[in-house]
């Protein structure tokens, strides 16, 4: 930020974007679009092919999905580790923690309950 801007109190990102910067930003979006398209195509390919060991497919799809979400965050939402982005990154980390707790916790608990539950016909007999 130049001194004249400081006197006006203008923040650096409120200014008009010039033609050159706009072209650079479009380049970032193009890279993101290319990578996301690639990962999407790989996901659909992995799901339909018989070349991959079948039990590994769900794990592969999960990894590809997480990678694509990362691509979207970095290239479309401009998530960086820069100083003006620390708060956003911290909030994201907390959000990811909650999401993992909710999903993994639910699956874990419900799988155990399913496992330990008496078979349905025995429950019916006990209620008779």
């Amino acid at each position, binding site marked *: *930020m130049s*001194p004249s801007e*400081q*006197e006006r*109190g203008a*923040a*650096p*990102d*409120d200014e*008009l*974007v*010039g*033609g050159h910067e*706009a072209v650079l*930003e*479009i380049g970032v*979006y*193009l890279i*993101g*679009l290319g990578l*996301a*398209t690639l990962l*999407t195509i790989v*996901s*659909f390919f*992995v*799901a*339909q092919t018989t070349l991959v060991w*079948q039990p590994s*497919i*769900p794990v592969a*799809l*999960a990894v*590809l*999905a997480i990678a*694509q*979400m990362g691509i*979207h*965050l970095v290239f*479309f*939402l401009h998530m960086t580790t820069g100083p*003006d982005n620390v*708060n*956003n990154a911290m*909030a*994201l980390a*907390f*959000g990811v923690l*909650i*999401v993992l707790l*909710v*999903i993994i*916790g*639910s*699956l874990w608990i*419900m799988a155990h309950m399913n496992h330990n539950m008496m078979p349905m016909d025995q429950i019916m007999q006990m209620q008779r």
Partner: protein
Amino acid sequence: MTGFEAIAGREVLNRAGESWDRHAVAAHTASELVSKRIVVGYGFWIFLLSDIVMFSAFFASYAVLVDQTAGGPAGRDLFDLRNVGLETACLLLSSFTCGIASIGAQAHRGSWFYSAMAVTFVLGATFVGLEVREFTSLAAQGAGPTRSAFLSGFFTVVGCHGLHVTAGLLWLLTMMAQVFAKGYRADILRRVLCFSMFWHFLDIVWVGLFSMVYLIGAVT
């Protein structure tokens, strides 16, 4: 540093009886002030994360119920991956054009902004149309949301995303109208920023949906 800390620092200087340079303090606070654009973006990001937490609850309930088909059709009998691929292409391309539109708005280029927003709208509307067609054909096959716990979970998580996209389309039209009526004012540009964040967020949720619901459902 916040304004409070700046004021506190000034008081300390006063109490010490030192002479302080007004210009130096003013320049210091100005450089430490965070721009409103960053603050608004941060607030909206918190909202998006809370929305993601809500989606994670729907994902978890779907994942728990996915095998409870009650003798009805399972995912591999129902999901049409060609349709899902088309939906994915629509939403991914619309995310890209939405980014172009937000750059166009920041550069105050009306032609970029309006054309990119229009393309985004068409792609988003195509997505919603494909999803409605899929839902009606499922219901016609007797695989509506009341058929089994699996289908209830499926319609809830996918339908909730579809509703978000529909709301996003209305917001998109509102933003085009506001830019048209009020021009590239700073507050309008902040709203365009929030809209583009929302649209990118919808694409991120869709990545989870097509991978974890459709592709895994079609495989297992």
